[in-house]
């Protein structure tokens, strides 16, 4: 379980995150949603010890600020989009090897490491372009590589920063499938702009606005408190049942153009 107590993160003069107290449950998909600049990414980066913060974060009982990076890197993966300069661009296989560093014990990869890398590559259907450079991949392929990187060290928690950015509609369904499969064995915490996407895969929801948490709750509570969501985004939402699953659809389209 990830427990956050009175978290505060400052960027220069602005508080990106203020007074956040929160518990993120194990074994579920937690979606952090909110408008731009709400502090979603900063929250994930604090948990992964990438940014400095005030307050306390407990990762399975370990206080993050006092735990060495090496230990944290074995427990969780933080993943975001990667950009590599052309001439230094690494191949897919090399990036996967690097992602395995926290758990590989030797200077060079052992047979076990390589087997794990190949198995994960097959799982994410990236095994047919392992020798391609990252700069040559399509955004859909790159997204799968990024996800593969985050699971290759077999962490307990996956913190995914906007895994659906740069993913077009045709690939979103596949992304949801991948995430659902991962959710069987991992605790996933992700940020997203897409409330519909979140409402399809989320078990637990954190709504943020202006650096503060304005709502926390499971699916039931999320759909019951539609009002908070509408206030935060300034847009109406419509909950529909699609194939037996309740989802949340933003109505910005109707609001703007629907009445004419």
């Amino acid at each position: 379980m990830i427990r956050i107590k009175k978290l505060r993160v400052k960027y220069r003069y602005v508080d990106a995150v203020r007074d956040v107290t929160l518990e993120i449950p194990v074994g579920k998909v937690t979606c952090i949603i909110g408008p731009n600049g709400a502090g979603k990414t900063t929250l994930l980066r604090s948990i992964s010890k990438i940014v400095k913060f005030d307050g306390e974060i407990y990762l399975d009982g370990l206080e993050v600020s006092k735990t060495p990076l090496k230990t944290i890197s074995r427990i969780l993966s933080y993943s975001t989009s990667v950009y590599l300069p052309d001439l230094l661009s690494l191949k897919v296989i090399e990036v996967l090897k690097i992602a395995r560093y926290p758990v590989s014990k030797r200077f060079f990869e052992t047979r076990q490491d390589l087997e794990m890398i190949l198995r994960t590559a097959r799982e994410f259907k990236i095994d047919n372009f392992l020798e391609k450079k990252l700069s040559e991949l399509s955004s859909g392929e790159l997204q799968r590589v990024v996800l593969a990187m985050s699971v290759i060290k077999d962490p307990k928690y996956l913190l995914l920063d906007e895994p659906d950015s740069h993913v077009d509609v045709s690939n979103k369904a596949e992304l949801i499938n991948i995430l659902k499969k991962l959710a069987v064995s991992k605790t996933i915490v992700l940020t997203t702009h897409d409330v519909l996407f979140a409402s399809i895969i989320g078990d637990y929801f954190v709504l943020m606005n202006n650096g503060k948490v304005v709502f926390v709750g499971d699916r039931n509570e999320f759909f019951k408190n539609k009002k908070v969501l509408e206030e935060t985004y300034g847009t109406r939402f419509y909950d529909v049942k699609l194939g037996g699953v309740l989802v949340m659809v933003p109505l910005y389209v109707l609001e703007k153009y629907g009445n004419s």
Partner: protein
Amino acid sequence: MTRDTHRLILLFSLLTALFLTIYASLFIGSAKHVNPLVMEYRYTRVIEVVLAGLVLGVSGAYLQSSLRNPLVDHYILGIGSGALFSVYIFILFSSIYYLILPFVAIVGGLTALFLTITIAEIIGGSDISYVLAGIGVNSLFAGLAHLLSYLILVKNPYALYLLAGGFTLASPDYKIPLIISAIIVLATYPFLAKPLNALLLGDELVYQIGYNPRYYRLLAIITAGMFSSVIVSYFGLIGFIGLVSPHISRFLLRTGDNRFVIPLSGIVSALLLLITDDLARSVFVNIGIGEVPAGSIVAVIGAPFFLFLILSRYRGVLH
């Protein structure tokens, strides 16, 4: 597995090539009975060229990976001219003490490096901004060094050799400091190779691979800056070798994995520098031109390579 084996074979065959070239540089093309003094000088010079090449090649790989920038080496970042300038200042006020010179050079080299990095980060931190900041810092210190070179001409004519680096001044005194430099640089390799690979992915991802990017970047940059300054203090400005060698290594290995690139870059750089120095020492002398500085030959080959890198990468991108 097999791919890695191929890479190790490549590494060892180039190492063999280096040893063969060392042998050739010492014994081929000379009369049967060489004056033992000449032989000793030649031996010293060849060893020092190889050590200098090793340090410059590894430093280049460190700088490129830690700054995520394919366009840099110690020369382009201004470390070289910064070191040279401080060495000249020192010579102006005292005489040459070969044991103190490296330390003086390190101060100048690191100052220039710090200036370049600060300016580059202020103007945006892209790889081009590093080159631009480097040009400015480089010109400043190179200009100052040129001015000083006239002042110290009376005092120490040999110091002029440092402007276009070369190995004519190779002296047995330099051997120990150079060996120590090479050992320290190589000793950092096992600690830095994997973190430098991680650094290529960008800082955010480095944290969750378990390394603090600032710490490892600083370690790599300072190691490279310090020991390339040592080379400058003895042999002067030898640009572009540290830029070219990592790229040649990446091309030969078909990977950017620093566990292979760093040592190969050291070997390639030593090999290239030795061949260049052989050319400078023998070929040009035999055709009647006289000895030319190895640094100039390296620049003549290296600068077009640099231009090629820019052309292949930025064609039509910069406006």
